[in-house]
């Protein structure tokens, strides 16, 4: 039942099996790390932390046991590229994890797969079994004495916040998936208190491509601060929704042309936690320095009610809030109330300003990314679509 949305032209299709790992193992771990650093690869989950720096910090953290965790808790609304990668390119992900283990010196890897993707599990287990049989996992991988590494799959249980790396680790440890205060970061105090790298599914796959095709190839694509290619999950009002590969730094307008979404009035980039880009700003670029994204692009056609969009996102956050800190727990329902007032045409400009300042408080005072991001969509819709949302004739 997993429909094909993959373009045959994806870089992932052209990577020879084992070419990244094989190339990494020829030289000492520092060499592979250097190549990843030269590529400028940044975390593909959306936050954009430099991958090589994360790995380097984990190398430097003292500890006998180190862990490589693949964050497959793809819960951001509008994101489905990890599902496609896990379905069609699982080997790349495991290969990337193995490279990570080689670089940081880990023996144990965990894929944290979201509960909603349970149907992918047996496929992933089969790939793991095959890799063990091929000596790409297990003991003395590739015949390299002392390089032992294996991967286990652990399931999430329907909590969006567990996509946040410290909440993910809490969940793995058998706790409620509540984010921790940072620092300490997982690179020194991660799973069971050990140095841990947590990377997105796509990041691991790109690591393999970089080692196979060279850092130069990767950093010649994209912008200076956002190098390389990225997968985008495109949905909403466009003629060809699906997973696409584009260079970082593509403008929203160029992207819309590719997917048949011209004429859109707004595009939500980065999912519920991202921002709403109105038509007037379609020349902006999708890159960490401008409009960042984990890959989610949702297109809104001219007929869409932007208030409904804001309401849907806020309802999502109200449902997914872990309730730990006050700004997020109490703020989100208050914003939903505000959206309902706007829908009924009963919201004064003054109150709207108060709602916006509440949103800004949530951005500043919430403990984790979820609460800090929750008001984003609301605030950008209020900013760009005041004409549409104010003075409605109530229903």
């Amino acid at each position, binding site marked *: *039942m*997993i*429909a094909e*949305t993959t373009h045959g032209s994806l870089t992932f299709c052209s990577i020879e099996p084992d070419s990244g790992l094989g190339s990494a193992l020829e030289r000492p771990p520092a060499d592979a790390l250097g190549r990843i650093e030269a590529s400028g690869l940044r975390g593909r989950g959306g936050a954009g932390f430099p991958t090589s720096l994360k790995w380097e910090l984990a190398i430097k953290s003292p500890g006998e046991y180190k862990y490589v965790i693949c964050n497959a808790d*793809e*819960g*951001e*609304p*509008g*994101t*489905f590229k*990890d*599902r496609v990668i896990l379905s069609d390119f699982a080997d790349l992900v495991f290969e990337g994890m193995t490279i990570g283990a080689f670089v940081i010196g880990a023996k144990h890897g965990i894929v944290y797969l*979201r*509960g*909603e*993707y*349970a*149907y992918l*599990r*047996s496929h992933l*287990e089969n790939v793991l079994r095959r890799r063990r049989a091929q000596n790409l996992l297990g003991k003395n991988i590739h015949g390299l004495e002392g390089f032992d590494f294996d991967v286990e799959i*652990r*399931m*999430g*249980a*329907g*909590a*969006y916040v567990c996509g946040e790396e410290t909440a993910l680790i809490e*969940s*793995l*440890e*058998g*706790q*409620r*998936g*509540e984010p921790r205060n940072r620092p300490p970061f997982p690179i020194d105090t991660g799973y*069971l208190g050990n140095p841990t790298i947590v990377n997105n599914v796509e990041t691991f796959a790109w690591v393999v491509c970089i080692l196979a095709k060279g850092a130069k190839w990767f950093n010649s694509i994209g912008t200076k601060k956002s190098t390389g290619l990225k997968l985008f*999950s*495109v*949905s*909403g*009002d466009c003629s060809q*929704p*699906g*997973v696409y590969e584009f260079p970082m730094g593509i403008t929203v307008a160029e992207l819309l042309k590719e997917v048949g979404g011209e004429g859109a009035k707004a595009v*939500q980039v980065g999912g*519920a936690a991202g921002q709403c880009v109105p038509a007037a700003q379609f020349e902006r670029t999708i890159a960490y320095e401008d409009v960042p994204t984990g890959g989610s692009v*949702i297109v809104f056609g001219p007929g*869409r009610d932007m208030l*409904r*969009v804001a309401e*849907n*996102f806020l*309802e*999502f956050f109200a*449902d*997914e809030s*872990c309730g730990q800190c006050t700004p997020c727990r109490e703020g989100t329902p208050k914003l939903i109330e505000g959206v309902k007032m706007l829908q009924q045409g009963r919201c004064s400009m003054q109150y709207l300003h108060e709602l916006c300042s509440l949103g800004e408080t949530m951005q500043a005072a919430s403990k984790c990314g979820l609460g800090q991001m929750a008001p984003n969509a609301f605030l950008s819709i209020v900013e760009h679509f005041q004409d549409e949302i104010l003075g409605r004739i109530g229903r």
Partner: protein
Amino acid sequence: MLVTEQERLRDDLVKMTDRFGRDRSALMPILQELMRTRYHISEYSMQVIADLLDIHPVEVSSVVSFYSFLEDKQRGQFVIRLCRTIACDMSGEGNVARQLVNDLGIEFGGTTPDGKFTLGWANCLGMCDQGPAMLVNEKIYTQVTPEKVHSILEECRSTFGVHATVDKERC
């Protein structure tokens, strides 16, 4: 010999701890296994798990209450979760929701009296390009229409419980 349900449950839980270990990090896999086999996590099983893992039962209860896929109330053999996030919302999830309510005769959050179906919402199932999407236990359905709802439910009814499929898929 007559084995009471509670004794059987305890035996099963002990087997699970043999399989997953008795560390705290084994808690989620145990709870997930229990959901798969018994459709809910009772207070009694929370107590037994707590004893086996040497933690307070409140710890178990707090974990169960946190995750939406872990439930302390009995749910149906088939849990239907309809995606309500924006892309599915835009592709007509509302009509599918309505038809599910009509065909099952229960509201969202409810379970049919025969214990077959539980109806609920899901947040983004990652099928945004093929909405509306719906999860029935671990099976995903995409581009669901109100018309298709009936055949999906019939497909479930004709399956003799989830036991057969669940056991096969268990890894």
